């Protein structure tokens, strides 16, 4: 009969190797501690630097915010509002003065093919300086092809934008020698380019 009992006290691997591992582990721990300390100091310095920068930016932001508030308050005073309205009015006059009807007519004429003529033209001034001037005109052509060429030129012209045809389809005039009439509208931006 085989026996497997034993009353001896066997030391566990933990007990057997504890002493052998103690020195290298202590050394590794010390190295790790030094590295962690170094990293902590470096991170703290970086943090301090960033904190100072953020603090300076916050001060600057606060200063600008205060300045903005002062300016807003100044602008909200009645006399400043009057000045603002007057400035707007002057800007509108300048805008109107820059606009030339002859120039508009010339721009439209450049777009007209030989067989098309300008019948009438009307202008609508913009209420705000930022808005465009609307031009409404009626052209008469000898043929539909001539009008199509005009419309094509109008569309490609840099002086006009937002081109729309007002009349719904082509209209033939009964007068002798007359062709096809079309009414259209566009925003004139030619004076801005100058």
């Amino acid at each position, binding site marked *: *009969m085989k026996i497997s*009992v034993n009353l001896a*006290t*066997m030391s566990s691997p933990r007990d057997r190797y504890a002493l052998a591992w103690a020195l290298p582990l202590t050394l590794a721990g010390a190295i790790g501690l030094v590295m962690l300390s170094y990293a902590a100091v470096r991170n703290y310095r970086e943090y301090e630097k960033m904190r100072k920068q953020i603090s300076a930016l916050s001060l600057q932001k606060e200063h600008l915010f205060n300045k903005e508030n002062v300016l807003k308050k100044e602008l909200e005073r009645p006399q400043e509002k009057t000045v603002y309205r007057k400035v707007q009015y002057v800007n509108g006059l300048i805008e109107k003065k820059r606009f030339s009807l002859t120039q508009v007519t010339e721009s439209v004429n450049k777009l007209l093919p030989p067989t098309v003529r300008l019948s009438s033209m009307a202008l609508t001034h913009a209420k705000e300086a930022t808005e465009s001037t609307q031009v409404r005109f009626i052209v008469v052509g000898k043929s539909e092809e001539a009008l199509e060429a005009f419309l094509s030129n109008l569309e490609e012209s840099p002086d006009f934008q937002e081109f729309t045809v007002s009349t719904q389809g082509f209209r033939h005039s009964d007068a002798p020698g007359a062709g096809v009439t079309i009414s259209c509208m566009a925003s004139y931006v030619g004076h801005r380019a100058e």
Partner: protein
Amino acid sequence: MNWNSFINPMRMVFSGGPTRFVMPTLAFEIQPHFVAGARLDSSRHVVRRLGMRELEANTVAPLPNGPNIANLENLRLALRGVSEVIGNGGGRLGLLLPDGSVRTAILSFETLPDDPRQVDTLVRWRMKEYLAYPSDEAKVSYQILWRDAGGVGVMVLAAKQSLLAEYTDALGLKNGGPELILPATAALLPLLPDADQLLVHVCSGWVTTTVTAARRLALWRTKAVDGLPDDLANQVGAEVTRVLASCRDHLHVEPEKVWLCARGTGVSPVSGHGQDAHTPELAPILAGLISKEVTPLASEPKWAEALPAAEQTVFQSVGAPFAGLLANAR
């Protein structure tokens, strides 16, 4: 998924766990009448060197509870003498103790838990009735003998830790302790053939009887024997008769063979009376007393073939447990 099958072995490895048999390179046996030591070659399964020194009376008194070594200087002197013969070079050290110093019990359980720590607690709890001291003070080792539908059979060895420390200190080791500690009779068990057997081990005032049935250790009994040399045989005979009767009545086993291993000369540690307990003389007397054939537990000659001629005689006298250690490792 059941992780216990993985966790329990790992826990055993890292926490030390129950100690298992370790084949020693050097083995010492301390008995009340003598100290023996052997250098074992586990690769060739032979005893290389063997030494023995007799002990003065009252040097060692094997009791399960309380100090065993009464004269440490004498014991150390004898151990040094043995060491000079077998050498004290490195290697695993084994220590065989008197049977009287160790409590051995065969316990049966309905079932055992998987966790070794729970088994240890359960075994200690059951061993309380066998121990004369708190079970927490004992070093316990167990071996599962059988596990079937009827339950689990466990052989348990228990020795007081302070007592083990006494013997370990006597060896004078500077680093650690022995890697194997067993009662001497446990080392004889591997020499028994697989059948229903009764082993009688008489040694230095103690007799231990063990019964194996169906390849299982079914009984272990250790008793102090006292008296004059003539009376020793009668006491051993009475003990063996009681054991045989118990086998028939309780285990329903009739051992096929009775094996005898009698060792040790000197004075009874209990009474101080002289004893002479060698197997060749005791075997026929015991056979007459129990009316059954008694076979000497002889070690195979091959165990001792590497020994010098002078040491072969010592081997025949006291070397059986060392042969048992080699047989267990085979």
